[in-house]
Structure formats: structure tokens, C-alpha cells
């Protein structure tokens, strides 16, 4: 029967990470990390003590056994704090590797006390090179599709520097060839495994976007209560209050949808792939609309670098765009909802 509450363990998990990020990833740290290429190594070390790449891996493979829903709940907190650590990417990559034949050296590095970061290239490589890989500048371990093969490479330290970008994210092009390349799967099996991993990335990124949107909404609402114009708080103007009400509704909807998508994946529901795309699309829309409203509520100040809302605004666009044009994502959702088009 429907139960929209979290379990005691999940409540504890959420509270642990909420408190951790609130203390360890405040806005000044996010800003400093952005200057340094979108990554904070000390924060990475600290967060891995709570739940590193193997958090979502089955205990039989040396992981902590968290389900996708558990990870999604944590990714909401990560997104709310804009924490500059590649947890989502590392979780997805570790879960993918855990289902393949063991890659002993690499696996040890992911489950180490100070684990290496990992990621999955979302799009197939072109001539061996995967373009703008999320966390590509900081992840040693990269899995991805190279032609007909699902491969993993492990290069320490990561060979590519971050490129300057809207979201201040550690993205970089990565080669899926060269020494130490290991083939994990071939053909349809390779494509299916990769597709599942990308769906997990969609759901967990949707979770991060839900958290981001919720935090941006709070910024907007607080500012609307404090800022006075014409002798009254600006939040008393319906022209602003109604926009905030609209996005508050979207944030609640996006959270429900994203949690449903993670739950459906854990339960192996038939519509899980469609729900992953739906959650990703709607959380992206929600984050972009919410940060736009929250920034606008701040007036000109919101546009200045001093105010935090711009940090949210830029990432709301940047995080999901790594998947590509959202209208193409809608087309991919259609492919999951309806049968593929007839060949012409």
C-alpha cells in the first residue's frame, strides 16, 4: 500500500548527509572549489567516510548495500548544498562495475579508505574519445561505450583538466583507449548495461536537481520575506508570491516523481526506464524554473556574484545539459513509452 514516508534508516541517512553538507560544504567552499575546477579533495575524503563510491553496491561485492532510492535521497542533500564532489557519478560507475566481471585493481581503488572517483561517459565515444564526461576531470576510473564494447579505463591521476563551463563542474573529454583498457561487455549486452547505468545517472542527477531546486526556493522565499519595498515585504506582492507558489508546486512534484523513479528501479517495475527519463526531464525543468524565479526575486542583487542564488541558477542548467538537448531527451522518453518508430 502507498507509503510516502521514509524508513527510520532512510531518515537517519538523510539527516546524516544533510548535517554533513551543511557543515562541510557551505557556499564559500563551493565558490573556492569552483575556482579550483569544481572539486574539493578534502570534502571528497570526508564524504567518502560516510558513503563513498561503493555505498550503493551489494555487500557481497564489498559495498554498503544502499538501494537507488537511498542514493537518491542522499543526492537530494548533495544537490541542496551544491557539494563539489562526484558522488553521483562514482555511485553509478561502481554499481555498473559491480555487475560486470571483476576488475580487481580498479575495484580495490573504489573501495579503498580513500577511494578513487569514478564516472560513466553518458554518450558513446567518438574514435575512442568521450566528450565532456561528467566528473571527467577528477575521476580516475571511467566506464563508457567505445563502439561495440563497454570498457573501463583507470588512469591515476586523471589525465584531463577541467574546462571552464557554466556550472563550474569538473567536466572533461576522456579517452577510453590506451593502456589498462578493460572490456566489460560486448554488443547488445554492452549497450544494455550502459543504458541502465545512464538511467541511474538520470535518476540520481534528478535527485540532485530536486535538492538544488528546493534550496533555491528557500533562498527566494527568505529574501522575499526580508526585502522591503514600498514599505512592505516584497513577498506580500502576489506578482512574486504566485511565482514562488508555482515553483514550490513543481519542486514537490519533482521530488515525488524522482523518488517514484528510484523506487521503481529498486523494485524492477516495468516502467522504471520511462520513469527515470520523466524524473530527469521534470527535475531539470523544475530546477531551471525555480532558480530563475528565485534569482528574479532577488532583483539586481541576484545577478551579482556576491549572492548565492547565481550558484544555483548556473548549475540548474549545467547539470542536466550533460545529457544533451532536453528535447532529444523527450524523444528518448517517447521511445520508452511507445514502441520505436517503424523503419521508413
Amino acid at each position, binding site marked *: *500500500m*502507498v*507509503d*510516502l*514516508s*521514509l524508513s527510520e534508516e532512510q531518515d537517519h541517512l538523510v539527516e546524516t548527509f544533510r548535517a554533513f553538507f551543511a557543515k562541510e560544504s557551505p557556499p564559500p567552499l563551493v565558490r573556492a572549489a569552483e575556482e579550483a575546477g569544481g572539486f574539493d579533495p578534502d570534502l571528497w575524503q570526508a564524504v567518502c567516510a560516510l558513503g563513498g563510491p561503493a555505498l550503493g553496491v551489494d555487500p557481497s561485492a564489498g559495498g554498503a548495500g544502499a538501494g537507488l*532510492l537511498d542514493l537518491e535521497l542522499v543526492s537530494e542533500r548533495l544537490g541542496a548544498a551544491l557539494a563539489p564532489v562526484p558522488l553521483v557519478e562514482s555511485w553509478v560507475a561502481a554499481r555498473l562495475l559491480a555487475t560486470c566481471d571483476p576488475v580487481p585493481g580498479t575495484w580495490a581503488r573504489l573501495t579503498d579508505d580513500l577511494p578513487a572517483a569514478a564516472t560513466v561517459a553518458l554518450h558513446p565515444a567518438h574514435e575512442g574519445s568521450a566528450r565532456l564526461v561528467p566528473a571527467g576531470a577528477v575521476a580516475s576510473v571511467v566506464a563508457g561505450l567505445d563502439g561495440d564494447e563497454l570498457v573501463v579505463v583507470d588512469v591515476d591521476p586523471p589525465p584531463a583538466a577541467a574546462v571552464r563551463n557554466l556550472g563550474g563542474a569538473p567536466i572533461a573529454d576522456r579517452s577510453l583507449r590506451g593502456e589498462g583498457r578493460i572490456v566489460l561487455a560486448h554488443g547488445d549486452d554492452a549497450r544494455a548495461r550502459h543504458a541502465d547505468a545512464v538511467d541511474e545517472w538520470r535518476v540520481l542527477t534528478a535527485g540532485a536537481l530536486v535538492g538544488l531546486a528546493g534550496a533555491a526556493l528557500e533562498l527566494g*522565499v527568505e529574501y*522575499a*520575506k526580508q526585502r522591503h519595498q514600498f514599505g*512592505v*515585504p516584497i*513577498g*506580500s*506582492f*502576489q506578482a512574486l*508570491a*504566485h511565482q*514562488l*507558489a*508555482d515553483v*514550490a*508546486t*513543481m519542486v*514537490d*512534484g*519533482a521530488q*515525488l*516523481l524522482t*523518488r*517514484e523513479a528510484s*523506487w*521503481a528501479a529498486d523494485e524492477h517495475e516495468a516502467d522504471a526506464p520511462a*520513469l527515470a527519463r*520523466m524524473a530527469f*526531464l*521534470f527535475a531539470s525543468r523544475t530546477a531551471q524554473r525555480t532558480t530563475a524565479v528565485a534569482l528574479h526575486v532577488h532583483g539586481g542583487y541576484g545577478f551579482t556574484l556576491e549572492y548565492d542564488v547565481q550558484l544555483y541558477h548556473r548549475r540548474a542548467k549545467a547539470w542536466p545539459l550533460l545529457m544533451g538537448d532536453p*528535447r532529444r531527451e*523527450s*524523444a528518448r*522518453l*517517447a*521511445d520508452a*513509452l*511507445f*514502441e520505436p*518508430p*517503424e523503419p*521508413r
Partner: protein
Amino acid sequence: MDFRLGAKSDAFREEVRSFLREHLRPDTLERAHETGTHHDRELHRALGAQGWIAASWPEEYGGQGRDPFEMTAMRDELRLAGVPTDGLGQSVIVARTVRAVGTEEQKQRFLPPFLRGEIIFALGYTEPDSGSDVAAAKTRAVRDGDDWVIDGQKMFTTLAHESAYVFLLTRTNPDVAKHRGLTMFLVPLDAPGVEIHPVHTMGGERTNATFYTGVRVPDAFRVGEVDGGWDVMNVALTFERGGFALSEADRVWQWTVDWARETRRPDGTRVIDDPLVRERLATMRVNDEVARLLALRCSYVAATGGMPGVEGSMHKLWYAEAMTADAAELVDMLGAEGLLEHGEPDAPVDGWVEQLHRHAAVTTIYGGTSEVQRDIIASRGLGLPRSRR
């Protein structure tokens, strides 16, 4: 977490489906469409005979003690089948209010025939000069011995021509603040002095303007305290946003998908294979799923002993606004043929998309406008200062 309605609801869903196979006649939808009266007496009585008019009520009140998720399953089936449920929906609001605040005598008088599906109720709040500002009602009720004499006019008294009583908001004290001088009555619609004039809408619905001239009502038909009508209204308005289920959008989406799969263009391609069609249908599915989940959350709040307030407003706001935008997109998607009305032999999706577009506009108005919902979300949900500007 669990997003499944569960075995009990699945079993009840099957019961509802088999009931509909037996009782839903093919012409029921057509008749509702033609007349604009979205209430079917025969079907409504059959629901009553089944014990389903207020299936969620405890058995001692004539219900079946169905939980909120069983009710979700039932309403979803009624909606997906296109059952005209306006009469059921608005009557339940009145009956729940009578159950909550009525006298024992009133419960005995009004509820049994309601539960049997023999009578329905109309809502009499809105007036020509007061809609969202509902407490500004001017219809007067003046005490005369054991009776009250009512004079005034109501607007959008939907299904007054099918209803036994109208749940009437009246002014009994013009000398106090507007919220403090209101009283509610159940007024028999066959009483002398009541006139019902049809009003037809862009969506093809028939509603009514109702006129009350020297209408005498016994004091026993007063619901709640004299001048305590606003408290009664607040109970009723909360119930009004409690009818959570799939919307018309889900039904029309499914019909449109079926049509797009079956239909080929002159060049031989299937409509469903057109990228512009696929993208629109996919986007609408996302919006509908969000609406479904916001509704499911209301049921969950109710199932865990709460009263959905802000949650209800969020659902109402989202489903109405998203459906309005999506219906317009679906019409665009069909091109010029999207303009063809239901009944035109070559209308795509039998013209139901055109019909949804006509109808959708009113969903952002009735049951509390989108602006009223946003006010509630902003003040009660977000804690923003209340305002009227």
C-alpha cells in the same frame, strides 16, 4: 516508500471495472456531451445500489469504510471510462459537510436518499457579483417565525436542474464584517419562488443561474449556526479539494496515443512515429504523472489521519494549469483537423482533444481559481505574508 495502491485497491478496481462493464451504456458519454449535463441518473442510482456513493464513509453512516487508496482506484476507473461524475462529486461535498456539522435530524433527512443515489445536491455559493470573494454574497435570508425567507441570485449553480437541494450561502446579518454575517441552508429546488435558468458554456457544459424570490425554508434546513456560515463554508471548501484522482487529461492522452498508433498519414507513415507528436505526448505524460503523484500525496495525507490543505491546493493548481497548457498543445499537434468537433466523422481522436481544450479553461477557475490556490500555497505553505495586491 511504496507507490503501489496495494492488493485491496487492485481488487476494488476490478469490482469497479466489472460494474462499469455492466452498467455503463455506450450512449452515456454521448448523452452527457450532447446535453452538457454531466450526471446520469440511472448510473448514479446503480452506484447507490452498490453502496458506492460514499464508499469511504464508515459502515454505520452508510458507507463501506473504503480507504483513500481504494477510493483512488475507484475514481481513476470512473475517470478513465469517462463516467459523468459531476453530480457525484459536488453532492459528496455537501453530504460530507452535513455529516460533519449537521443536526441528527438533518443527517436522517438528507443522507439516506443521498447514499441510495436518489438525490443529488447543487452548490450555491457564487453570485453574479461574487466569485473568489465568496464571503461577499448578497443573497439575503431573513427570519420569519420558524421559517427563513430567502431572496437573491446565484450563478453557476451546476446541476440545479437535476438536484433536490441547493447548498445555499446567504447573508443573515448585513451589519457585521462580511465573514461574520453568513448562514448556510439546504434549499429545496422545487420550493415556490425558485427559478432555474440554463447557462451554456464554451465547454458544452450546461450550468445554471438560479433565482430566489421570497423562498420560504424551515429553520430545520439551516446547516450550522446562524451567522456561522463561514465556518461551514470552510469545511465544505476543504472537502471540495479532496476529490483526488486522474483527470480528463489522462483519458484523452490515452485515447490520443491509441489513435496515433492506429492512424496513418496519406504518405503511409504512422502518426505515432512523427517526432513532433512523440515529443508532445511524452511531455504531457510527464505532466500527468506529476498531477497523479500530487493527488496520490493527498490520499496519503488523508490515509495517515491528516487533512490535505496546501497539498490539495498544489494538486488542483498543477492539474488544471498543466491540463490547460497540454490540451492546447494537443490541438496544435493535430493541425487544422484538431479544430473538428466531436461528431464530425473525420475528427481525429473523435474530437475529444478539441473538447478537452474547450473544457480545460474552466478547470483553472472552478473549485477555487488558480490564483486562490497560489495564495494558499504562498501563505500557508511558504509562510509568505498575506496580501490582496
